[in-house]
C-alpha cells in the first residue's frame, strides 16, 4: 500500500484544487477572456487615456464572453 502524502501537502493540494475549480472549472475561456479584457482596458486607460472607449469596451467584452461561452456550451451539447 503506497504511503500517504503528508497532511500539509494534502491540504495544499486540496486548496489548489478548490481555486482551480473555482476559477477555471469547465469554463477556461471565461478566465482567459476576463484577463484579456482587463489587459485591453488597462492599455486603453493607461496607454492612450481613452476613458470613453474603456467604458464602452469593457462591458461589451463581458457580453461577448458570456454569449460566446453559452454558445460553446450549446454546440458541445447538441
Amino acid at each position: 500500500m503506497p504511503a500517504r502524502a503528508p497532511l500539509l501537502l494534502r491540504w495544499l493540494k486540496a486548496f489548489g484544487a478548490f481555486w482551480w475549480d473555482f476559477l477555471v472549472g469547465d469554463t477556461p475561456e471565461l478566465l482567459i477572456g476576463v484577463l484579456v479584457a482587463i489587459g485591453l482596458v488597462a492599455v486603453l486607460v493607461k496607454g492612450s487615456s481613452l476613458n470613453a472607449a474603456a467604458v464602452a469596451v469593457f462591458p461589451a467584452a463581458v457580453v461577448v464572453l458570456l454569449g460566446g461561452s453559452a454558445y460553446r456550451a450549446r454546440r458541445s451539447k447538441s
Partner: protein
Amino acid sequence: MHSTTSAVTLALAVFLASAVESVEALTIIVAAGVSRGWRSALVGMAVAIGALVVLVAALGPALVYLVPVNVLRAVVGALLLVFGLQWLRKAVLRAVGLKAKHDEDAIFKQHVDALTVAEVPRPAATGRVDATGFVVAFKGTFLEGMEVIVIVLGLGGGDHQLGLASAAAGAAILVVAGVGVVVARQLAGVPENAMKTVVGLMLTSFGTFWAGEGLGVRWPGSDLAILVLVGIYAVVTWALVVLLRPSPQQVTPEQARA
C-alpha cells in the same frame, strides 16, 4: 445618494449569494445528520465554521489595510467577474434546458443514499462522533463557506464595506439556519435558480465596475453605473435565453414531457 445605492445593492448581492450557498450547505448537513447522526454533523459544521472564522480574521484586515485599494479593486473585480460570468452562464443554460436545474431534493437524496451505504456502519448510540458524518458536514460547510468568504471579501473589500458585507452574509446564514431548524429539513422550496441568476448579474456588474475602477476607468455617474451594468447584463441574459432556446423541431419527446 450614490453611495447609498451602492451599499444597498452590495448588501443585497451578498445576502442573496450567501443565502444560496447556505441552502446548499444546509442540504449536506441535514443529509449527514439524518444518515450518520446529528452529533457528528453538528460537530463537523461547528469545526468548519471555526476554521472559516480564523481564515477571515487572518485574511480580511490584511486584504483591506495592506493592499493598495486600486490593486485590491482590480484583483477582486476580476475574481468577481469570472465567478459572476460562471453563474450567469449556468443560469442561461438552465433556462434553456441545457443544464439540469439545481434540485435540493435530488441532491439531498443523493447524499443520503451515499452516506447510508458507506463502508463504515453508522455507530450505535454510543455518543461517539461518526467520522464519515463529521467529514461530510465539515467539507460541505467549509467549501460553501469559502465561497461566501470570497464573495464577502470581494464585494466588501473592493468598496471598504467589509462590515456591511459581513453583516449581510451573517443575516443570510442566520435566516437559512433558522428556517432549517424550524422545518428540520433541507430547503427545497427556495427559488435557488432565480436567486442564482440575480446573484450572477450582480457579481458580474460589481466585478466589471471594480475591475474598471482599479484600472483607472472613470465610470459616468460613478456608483450609479453599477445599476446601468446590471440592466445591460440582464437584457443580454434574457436575449441569450431567447436565442439559445431550442426550436420546437429540436425538442426531443423526453424534453417536451419534462
